């Protein structure tokens, strides 16, 4: 790092600050007037890439001998279809839920995979562009892993929550579902109604928060480790250089497992939660 380089702490904070519509880091924990432009940009572009890839395979899908690309996409489709079939027993619901799960799997996998790009690559390019546009590069924030944004991860898990509520009402009827909210899991007795309801609400909140938090936490931690490894290389010593290469390689290889696993877990939990919405207590 050069003379006017940021300190380690500044470097980390810079990397963990989102590019949002206000131009500076968000001050409050919750602020609905702020939107993270970098997360939206990467998640929407990667989302479009996801459906484009899937659409490419679907467009040329034939019942004849599949090519490698078609075979690859079919493998994923069959994997998701099998899982969905095992978890959700309503064929009607699967018509939407299974494609949803496939999209979620591929989309989250690709968003996670952004973590494998060199941690400074896109932010540094953005700093150059920002500076060329007359901005202060110190305020050129850019985070490339959309799933390491708590809002994005919770946005997706809230989507799953909405689906759960929708299918609860669709399968059990509005009155049936409300009845279940007050009578399960402990039983139908007026004294137990509040307890049951409280338990149900806690269950829904816990499911949704843990669903989003799990993805966010893993990706955020992974990103932070990459930043720290980059800092190690930034010491510009022989130890730092070798350490950067060794640790970076090991962590990146390990991270391939994590990004795939987290995408798979998110997909499976989506199916499981929606499957639970189909079951009566």
């Amino acid at each position, binding site marked *: 790092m050069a003379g006017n380089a940021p300190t380690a702490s500044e470097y980390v904070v810079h990397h963990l600050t989102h590019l949002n519509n206000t131009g500076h880091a*968000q001050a409050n924990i919750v602020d609905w007037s702020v939107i993270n432009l970098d997360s939206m940009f990467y998640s929407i572009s990667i989302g479009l890439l996801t459906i484009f890839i899937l*659409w490419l395979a*679907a467009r040329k899908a034939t019942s004849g001998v599949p090519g490698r690309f078609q075979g690859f996409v079919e493998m994923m489709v069959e994997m998701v279809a099998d899982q969905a079939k095992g978890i959700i027993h309503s064929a009607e619901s699967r*018509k*939407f839920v299974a*494609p949803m799960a496939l*999209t979620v799997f591929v989309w989250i996998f690709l968003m996670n995979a952004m973590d494998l790009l060199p941690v400074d690559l896109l932010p540094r390019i953005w700093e150059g562009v920002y500076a060329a546009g007359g901005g202060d590069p110190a305020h050129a924030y850019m985070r490339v892993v959309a799933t390491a944004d708590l*809002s994005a991860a919770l*946005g997706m898990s809230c989507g799953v929550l909405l689906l759960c509520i929708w299918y609860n009402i669709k399968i059990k009827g509005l009155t049936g579902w409300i009845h279940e909210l007050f009578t399960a899991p402990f039983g139908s007795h007026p004294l137990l109604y509040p307890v049951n309801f409280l338990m149900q609400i806690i269950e829904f909140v816990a499911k949704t928060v843990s669903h989003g938090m799990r993805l966010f936490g893993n990706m955020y931690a992974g990103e932070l480790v990459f930043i720290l490894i980059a800092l190690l290389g930034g010491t510009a010593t022989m130890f730092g250089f070798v350490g950067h290469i060794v640790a970076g390689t090991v962590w990146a290889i390990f991270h391939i497992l994590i990004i795939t696993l987290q995408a798979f877990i998110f997909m499976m939990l989506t199916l499981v939660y929606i499957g639970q919405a189909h079951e009566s207590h």
Partner: protein
Amino acid sequence: MNLNATLIAQLVVFFILGWFTMKFVWPPIMKALDERATKIADGLTAADKAKSDLALAEKKVVEELRKARESAGDVRTSAEKQASKLIDEARAEASRIITQAREAAEAEAGVAAQRAKEALRDQVAHLAVAGAEKILRREINTQVHAELLANLKQELQ
């Protein structure tokens, strides 16, 4: 690590992407997969059928061969029978012809002998008459004794 409107936006994107996949990606791929599964199942069934057909055909071939061999044996047996019958018939015919010929020859020979006998008898009669004439030149009148001579000839027969 803050919550903001990104959450709402991401939620909307989530549903749009899911809807797109449901509409344009999932059905054609599932259709292709199902069709291929049907095709493969049909192919397997056809292969099984071909196999059993082949086994059946082989069995039939063996059966036909056995039949052909049997009928060839029958044909040979009957041909042999026929041949021996023909030979027997020919033999019988030949012996019949031989017998006939011999009988005819014998009959002919009998007739010839008879004729020769008769001629001989005639001659003997003539000779006898001639001899007698010579001896009894005078006493015997041919016209008178013709009846006598005829009786004599008759007796000699």
